[in-house]
Each structure stands twice: as structure tokens, then as C-alpha cells.
């Protein structure tokens, strides 16, 4: 893991906490935490674009949804689809979609990038809404969870809630480690440069568009991983998975959690997801409360939750990058 040791310890403790949770927590919350961890993967993937490459995508949910649809379409009625087939196909499909969308999008920047990514996501949204073969507005059911094993021998039964929990937790950690590795590698140095000063990065000898495109594809693929897990977990996928509200939500997790740190967006997803759940119990009009909460955070917590944590903990060196002004 990256960062100074207090942060590493905190993150290890958090993973440890998540690892023991299924044995102490209420089954309802186990289900909820699976959902939150999936959103955490989704938010981290967007942060690679927003927090590290400087590209604000308002259509990131497209890849989340496309992956889910691929899983739903692949899974036969009788079930038994091997994860060694399902996962690569879903990830490769999402990567290709991200390559196409990214190829068009990285030519633009700023608000035009925000809008063109939104436009592509809307195209995908309406494609699934208007094609009855794909379930239209009702969406599709995933007939069965993928089979994890070799030959007939089962490694992990995803139908079991605890197994699915640990499967998701494992992928959350793997995603974090992979992204941290990419960010420390030469590629990560270049995309950070692009975010800080693209023209100068180009002048130093980097074909920046190519780097932005690859970053877009990587982010899309990890969003696909999250979408795969979501569809497998709920056994359902619908156009709302790729709608702009979903893209807006994940954007919110990243900003509220704190851009430019990998743990920030996960924190954002957990905090917002839990609040959503609490408000939902409290009042039928929880969106009203959520709205006021979001506004309050924007006005009073400019660096997100991670910024607050960093300020309180006086963490040095590994704190969040400066938010853009």
C-alpha cells in the first residue's frame, strides 16, 4: 500500500474491520456493505480519471451498466456460467466500449468532455430502454450467479452471501492495489502531469491524448468490474444502472470523499451509501435531506471527507492532492 504508515495502518485496520464484519454484523447490513464495497470500486475507477488524469466524466455509469447487461445476456437460464468466462468477457466488452467512447471524448476538454461523456452514456441508456430484446425499461434478470471453480470442483459459492462478501472485499482490495501500482508506475506519473498541466506534459515529449485514452479505458474497465459485481449480486440490471443519475451519484462519491486519493472515493461511497440508507429509514423524502447534505458539504467541506480526515489527523505527505481551483 502507498502512503505514510499511519494511513497504511488505518487502511489495514479498515480492511480488517470489513473482514470480520460478516460474523458480527446484521445480515441486512452484510448485504448493504457488499453494495457499498461495489460502489467503492466504481468510485475508485472514476477517481483515476477525475483525481489523477483531470478528466471529469459524467457518463461513467455507462460502463457500470454495460458490464451488467453483458453478464445478464451471457448467463444461461440453467445457470452454471463459469466466472473464468464471464468476467473476462464483461471486462473486455467494457474496455472496448470505453475505447470507443474515449477515442471520441479525449479530443475535447473541460465542460465539453463532461458533456460528450454524458451524451454517450445517454445513447447507451436509450439503446437499452428502446430495445425490448434487452428488457427495455424493465431491464434483465441475471439467471444465476457465476460459478467459481475448476471443472466440477467449486472454489467459492457466490450464492452464499458470506462468500460473495469476501469475494467483493477481495476485489476491492485488489482494485485498490492495482490502481496504486499503476499510479506509482511511469504511466501514473504521466497522467498526474496531464492533470496538473497538460500542455507542458505534451511539450516534455508525451503524446498526452494517448495517455488520456488509456486512462479512460482502464477506468472504464474497473467500472465494468463494479458493474459485473452489482449485476451478479442483485441478479438484475436495468437502464437506470447507466442513467445520468447513477453517473452523478458516483461523481458525488468521488468529490465528497476526496479526489486524488484512492481511499477517499471509497470513504465517500460508504458515507453517502450509509446516509442514504439511514435517511431512507427516517423519512420517505430522504432525497431532500441528501440534497441539503450535499450542499452543506460543498459549502463547508471543500476537500471532501478525506480532506477533513487529513486535516484532523494532520497526516503529512500522503494527504490528498490539492483540489483544482
Amino acid at each position, binding site marked *: 500500500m502507498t502512503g505514510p504508515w499511519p494511513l497504511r495502518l488505518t487502511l489495514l485496520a479498515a480492511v480488517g474491520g470489513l473482514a470480520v464484519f460478516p460474523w458480527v454484523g446484521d445480515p441486512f447490513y452484510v448485504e448493504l456493505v457488499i453494495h457499498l464495497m461495489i460502489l467503492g470500486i466504481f468510485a475508485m475507477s472514476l477517481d483515476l480519471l477525475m483525481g489523477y488524469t483531470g478528466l471529469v466524466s459524467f457518463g461513467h455509469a455507462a460502463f457500470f451498466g454495460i458490464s451488467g447487461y453483458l453478464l445478464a445476456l451471457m448467463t444461461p437460464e440453467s445457470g452454471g456460467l463459469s466466472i473464468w468466462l464471464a468476467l473476462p468477457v464483461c471486462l473486455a466488452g467494457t474496455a472496448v466500449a470505453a475505447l470507443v467512447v474515449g477515442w471520441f471524448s479525449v479530443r475535447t476538454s473541460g465542460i465539453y468532455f463532461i458533456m460528450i461523456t454524458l451524451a454517450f452514456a445517454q445513447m447507451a441508456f436509450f439503446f437499452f430502454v428502446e430495445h425490448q430484446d434487452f428488457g427495455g425499461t424493465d431491464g434483465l434478470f441475471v439467471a444465476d450467479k457465476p460459478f467459481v471453480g475448476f471443472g466440477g470442483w467449486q472454489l467459492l459459492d457466490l450464492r452464499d452471501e458470506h462468500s460473495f462478501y469476501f469475494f467483493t472485499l477481495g476485489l476491492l482490495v485488489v482494485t485498490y492495489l492495482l490502481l496504486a501500482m499503476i499510479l506509482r*508506475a511511469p504511466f501514473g506519473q504521466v497522467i498526474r502531469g496531464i492533470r*496538473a*498541466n497538460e500542455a507542458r506534459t505534451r511539450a*516534455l515529449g508525451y503524446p498526452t491524448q494517448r495517455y488520456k485514452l488509456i486512462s479512460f479505458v482502464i477506468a472504464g474497465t474497473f467500472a465494468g468490474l463494479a458493474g459485473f459485481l452489482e449485476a451478479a449480486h442483485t441478479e438484475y440490471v436495468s437502464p437506470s444502472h447507466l442513467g445520468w443519475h447513477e453517473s452523478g451519484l458516483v461523481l458525488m462519491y468521488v468529490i465528497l470523499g476526496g479526489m486524488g486519493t484512492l481511499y477517499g472515493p471509497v470513504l465517500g461511497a460508504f458515507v453517502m451509501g450509509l446516509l442514504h440508507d439511514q435517511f431512507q429509514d427516517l423519512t420517505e423524502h430522504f432525497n431532500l435531506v441528501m440534497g441539503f447534505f450535499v450542499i452543506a458539504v460543498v459549502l463547508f467541506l471543500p476537500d471532501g471527507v478525506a480532506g477533513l480526515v487529513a486535516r484532523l489527523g494532520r497526516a503529512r505527505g500522503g494527504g490528498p492532492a490539492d483540489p483544482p481551483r
Partner: protein
Amino acid sequence: MSEPILNTLDLSRHFGALRAVDAVTLEFAPGRVHAIIGPNGAGKTTLINLLSGDLKPSSGSIRFKGQDITGAPPYVVSRLGVGRSYQKTNIFPAFTCFENCWLGAQSRERTSMRFLRPARRYRSVRERTERALALCGLTERAHVVSSAISHGEQRQLEIGMMLATEPELLLLDEPLAGMGAEEAARVIGLLRELAADHTLILIEHDMDAVFAVADRLTVMVNGRVLETGDPQDIRASPAVQEAYLGSGEGGG
């Protein structure tokens, strides 16, 4: 005279009706320090931007070491061995000086599409970075965030980032702008040192500095080349004196 390392032919760049650079034909000999001087608005920075690929020419051509680079994007020009520094400090403010230079040094690797090994373990890049920091005099400030160093140091860093890319030809756009006397003297010393094994194309307003380091001069006025020659010829040229140097006090 040896084959020029860089030459332009009828190079022009128009912005609407304004001919910022107008039919400029110039040859730059390898190993020389060639200064471009002229009043504000003469088109010097536009010329540098054309040479570095930051701007595309409206017409004309540019050749670098015999290869046509007209309209090539900046990253291609940079990778061929042309480095540039900017008049307005153009750094990565949130990065440390080390990280600023690192990005320049890393660009000399065959590719940066590498995703596994931590960047800091690339020894050749590290060495290049440290060399560049030493040359521009910022070794001691290596791990200070570059937005926190003085303006003069940022100017040094600007040059250091360029040096980290190990260019053959340096395009320097007013490297002394905004520097104190002491820092300027340092940088002039550095330019002299670099002149030993690099080609330098230099824009500078400080005439003392120009005459101290340049061995060839081009005077630009209104986007056109007025005259090119050795320093003493330029200083003696009546046309240049009238157009630019005023009453002829050159100094240096």
C-alpha cells in the same frame, strides 16, 4: 559553415490579419548560441512556438537535422531532441522540483506506457533527473513543492525541466525574465556551460546577457527578420541601431 541543425524556410504564422511571423528564413548552426532580439511584439515568442510545435505554421517549413518537422506536434519535436523553456513560468506547481524534472527525464524512456514497476525504480531516469537538478542549481531544493520556491528558482526549474529531457537544441524564451542580478548571473554561467555541447536559440531582452553569451544574432521587427549576423556586425549595423538599439549603447 557546417550543415545547419535547424532551419526555417519562408515560415509564417498569421492571426487573422496580423502577421505575427512573416516569411522568416533562418539557419541555426550546430553548437552555436543564436540569440533572437527585437522589440516587444516582434514575433520572437511566436517563432519559438512554431519551432517547438506549440503552434502550427500558416505556411513555410521547418527542418531539424535534415528532417521536415513542419506542423509536428510538440511531443514529437521534443522527442527528436528539441527542448524548450517558457517565458511565463510553466511548471507543475503541486509537484516537487524533483517531480517536475522527473517527468522531463522519464520522457526519454522508450515509452511510459508501463504499469507495473514503480517509476522511482528506473535508475536511468533518476540519474537524468538528478543531473538536471544539479545543472539548474536546485539539488538542495529537490524535495520542496515547486509552488513554494522563489520566482527566480522557478525560472531555474523551468530550465531544469527542459534539461531533464536531454535535448540537443535548446529553445530558451527569456530565461532571465524576472530574475534578480545574482540569479541571472548564475543562469548566464549555466548557459555558457551548456553552450559547450548544445545548440542554443535564445530570446532575451537583457542586452548585456545577450552579448555575453550569443555568438550569432538575429533582429526581428514586426514579424520579419531585419538582419542576422555576428554580434559586432549587429551592434554596428545602422539599420538595427535605428530600428531597435536606439542610440547604440550596447554594453557588455
